[in-house]
């Protein structure tokens, strides 16, 4: 076990070492604390009504803490079964250095596998530190729970993430072992049967069956217990069993990993990984640039192909209408069976949830936004050496950011359809759009810095994992800064949303400022482009 922890330690040091040396971590933490004041303020300004609203609505749906814990247990268990069902028998890593350097050292594969699982489990809360920091105390504030729950919640959440990682790795290792003995297909069938039975029994009995939640239960009940007003019975035992479960899975993973081959680790290089998949595009889907004359059209078409092939337009075309339709259906069916009672509660609940949805969606697409700029900047040599004007490059990057970013307000507005209140829908759309426009220069700047300085994999879902960023303290700081700025703006956005709901004519003011932000954003990108150097 000592060597497993050593491996995890090396990976961890490689990841955060340079950052620590720069003594920026402390400055960053202070910055995050200061930047989150608007978020905390907005929660307290809502007077806890949002929390009460959530509980009321959930209770009407028949959702209590037992059901939430059962569902969380099921999803945790699912993490073990997902690699089995998918037949994923490889640990995929992005860092070339980790692959070629660490694996060539005299360490056993099982030590590496367990060390990496621990590293992954520890890294997850670190990467999401800001999100954890902002959102974990929210239930404590909303439900008026004692403040001493906050540190316990942090600890439990870190335990949850470690446990989830260990379960996932165990699933991969078991699939790999099954592959080695030629039983992978049988294992996949077992996994699929587990999933089918879980869903079927769950639907028939309107509950989560025990076998579906067994693996995840101890840790899930611990988390939900800490977030509820009253603990579960025998909560001390639950806490103990959760620590025991983590240790047990760690032990099992260690034993199982002794039989795996080094091929369990594969590097996600852009080429070999993607070459496994077919890369042919149908003749009808190919854009005919040769037929185009106008430079604007040529450059815009290029951006549209990119977004189309990244399935961004599919979100606009299918995702947004689908969410709006589901919201409408939920509303009408809910009214039909009297689920929502007085519309006041629902209004309050949704009024509170609106900006949170917007922020969550935005955070989800933030990496996509930065990635889309990185994509362009890594190809900046093509634009510049072929004599494309810098203003034209700035414009297409702005359009790309806008088209990706507008997913957030549209999705939020589609969810707000549930209220059937034009003011809430419009406020959600306008305020989240304002937020997106506010963030575009930040995202643009980050993408430009990243895309021109380092060899990162574009559109990687977790850009922070890339080897080059790990090596570059300046980039790490940029990443942290962007997240903190996004968090600070998110708090302001929540305040703005409440303000717009109280004083509706402010919608026009915010919309007006948004138009101004479009102009300012494009100007900022133009200025950035003029200064671009490709190192």
């Amino acid at each position: 076990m000592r060597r497993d922890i050593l491996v995890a330690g090396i990976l961890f040091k490689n990841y955060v070492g340079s950052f620590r040396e720069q003594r920026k971590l402390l400055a960053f933490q202070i910055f995050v604390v200061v930047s989150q004041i608007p978020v905390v303020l907005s929660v307290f300004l809502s007077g806890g009504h949002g929390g009460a609203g959530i509980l009321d609505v959930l209770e009407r749906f028949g959702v209590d803490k037992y059901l939430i814990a059962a569902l969380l247990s099921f999803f945790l268990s699912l993490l073990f079964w997902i690699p089995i069902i998918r037949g994923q028998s490889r640990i995929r890593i992005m860092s070339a250095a980790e692959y070629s350097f660490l694996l060539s050292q005299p360490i056993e594969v099982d030590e590496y596998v367990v060390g990496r699982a621990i590293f992954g489990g520890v890294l997850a809360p670190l990467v999401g530190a800001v999100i954890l920091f902002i959102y974990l105390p929210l239930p404590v504030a909303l439900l008026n729970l004692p403040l001493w729950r906050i540190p316990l919640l942090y600890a439990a959440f870190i335990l949850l993430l470690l446990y989830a990682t260990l379960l996932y790795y165990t699933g991969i290792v078991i699939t790999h072992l099954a592959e080695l003995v030629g039983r992978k297909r049988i294992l996949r069938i077992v996994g699929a049967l587990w999933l089918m039975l879980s869903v079927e029994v769950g639907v028939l009995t309107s509950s989560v069956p025990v076998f579906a939640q067994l693996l995840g239960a101890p840790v899930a009940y611990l988390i939900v217990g800490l977030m509820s007003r009253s603990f579960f019975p025998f909560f001390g035992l639950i806490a103990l069993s959760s620590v025991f479960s983590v240790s047990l899975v760690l032990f099992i993973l260690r034993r199982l990993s002794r039989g795996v081959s080094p091929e369990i680790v594969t590097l996600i290089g852009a080429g070999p990984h993607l070459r496994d998949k077919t890369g042919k595009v149908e003749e009808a889907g190919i854009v005919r640039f040769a037929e185009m004359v106008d430079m604007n059209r040529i450059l815009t078409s290029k951006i549209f192909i990119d977004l189309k092939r990244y399935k961004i337009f599919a979100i606009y075309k299918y995702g947004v209408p689908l969410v709006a339709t589901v919201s409408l259906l939920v509303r009408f069916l809910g009214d039909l069976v009297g689920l929502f009672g007085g519309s006041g509660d629902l209004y309050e609940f949704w009024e509170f949830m609106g900006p949170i949805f917007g922020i969550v969606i935005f955070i989800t697409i933030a990496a996509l936004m930065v990635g889309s700029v990185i994509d362009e900047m890594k190809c900046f040599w093509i634009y510049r050496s072929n004599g494309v004007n810098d203003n034209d490059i700035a414009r297409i990057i702005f359009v790309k950011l806008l088209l990706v970013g507008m997913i957030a307000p549209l999705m939020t507005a589609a969810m707000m359809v549930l209220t059937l209140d034009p003011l809430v829908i419009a406020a959600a759309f306008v305020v989240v759009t304002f937020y997106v426009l506010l963030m575009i220069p930040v995202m643009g700047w980050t993408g430009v810095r990243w895309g021109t300085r380092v060899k990162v994999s574009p559109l990687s879902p977790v850009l922070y994992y890339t080897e080059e960023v790990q090596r570059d303290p300046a980039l790490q700081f940029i990443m942290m800064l962007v997240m903190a700025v996004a968090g600070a703006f998110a708090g302001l956005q929540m305040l703005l949303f409440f303000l717009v709901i109280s004083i509706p004519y402010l919608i026009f003011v915010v919309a007006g400022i948004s138009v101004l932000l479009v102009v300012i954003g494009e100007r900022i990108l133009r200025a950035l482009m003029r200064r671009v150097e490709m190192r």
Partner: protein
Amino acid sequence: MKLGRGMRLPVIEAYGLVKSYGSTVALRGLNLVINEGEIYGLLGPNGAGKTTTLKILVSLLKPDRGHVRIMGIDLHRYRVEALRNVGYVPEDPYIFPNLVVREFLEFIGRLRGIPRDILKERIERYLSIFDLQEKERDLIKTLSRGMLQKLAVISAFLPRPRVLIMDEPMSNMDPEAQHVFKEEVRKLVRNGSTALISSHMLDMVERFCTRVGIINKGVLIAEGEVDELKRRALGGEDATLEEVFLAVVRGG
């Protein structure tokens, strides 16, 4: 400019280039003049400043001091006009991953304003000679490194530029593609182009380039035709370019 008999017009002119990255000085007053019709090989050890020089010549980097003229046009003041004459191959070409091969080449062709019929004809030809015909509908992100290199080279050849600036253009290419590449460069040069090639492949440079420059620690320390360099550095033409290179670099 009136030139004497046998004299050639300078196509790439760089004077007093200085470039620093923080405390690291990459170029220390580099002067480089390449004349029309030359295939100029730029050699130097790792970190000598070759890639920095090439990037400055295509305006991907801005020099701290010094200035560049391409075909007599000031690169700093008239960048777009100057770069219309240039075809560039970077050291590690990253190309729009979500375009297919044909789309990318058409895209480049249209950026350069190549007439439609000529563009189609050139794309067909280059895809054919570089053996990429079967890949024309493939997404670029699925190509191997060698194929990406070929694609970058084709994109530089496509507008038939007056100036070719290429950083390690043959890395990852198979021998057949290397041969095709050299033939195409020779053909372009015969038709009035000029090529600047940075490379570590000394055998290739020795046989392929008409003039060679050796750069070390940010300055040009030797320059001339290969035979001339051999005479100057080692006092005889029997030496190889590798021996000359080592003698010049080690001797400072």
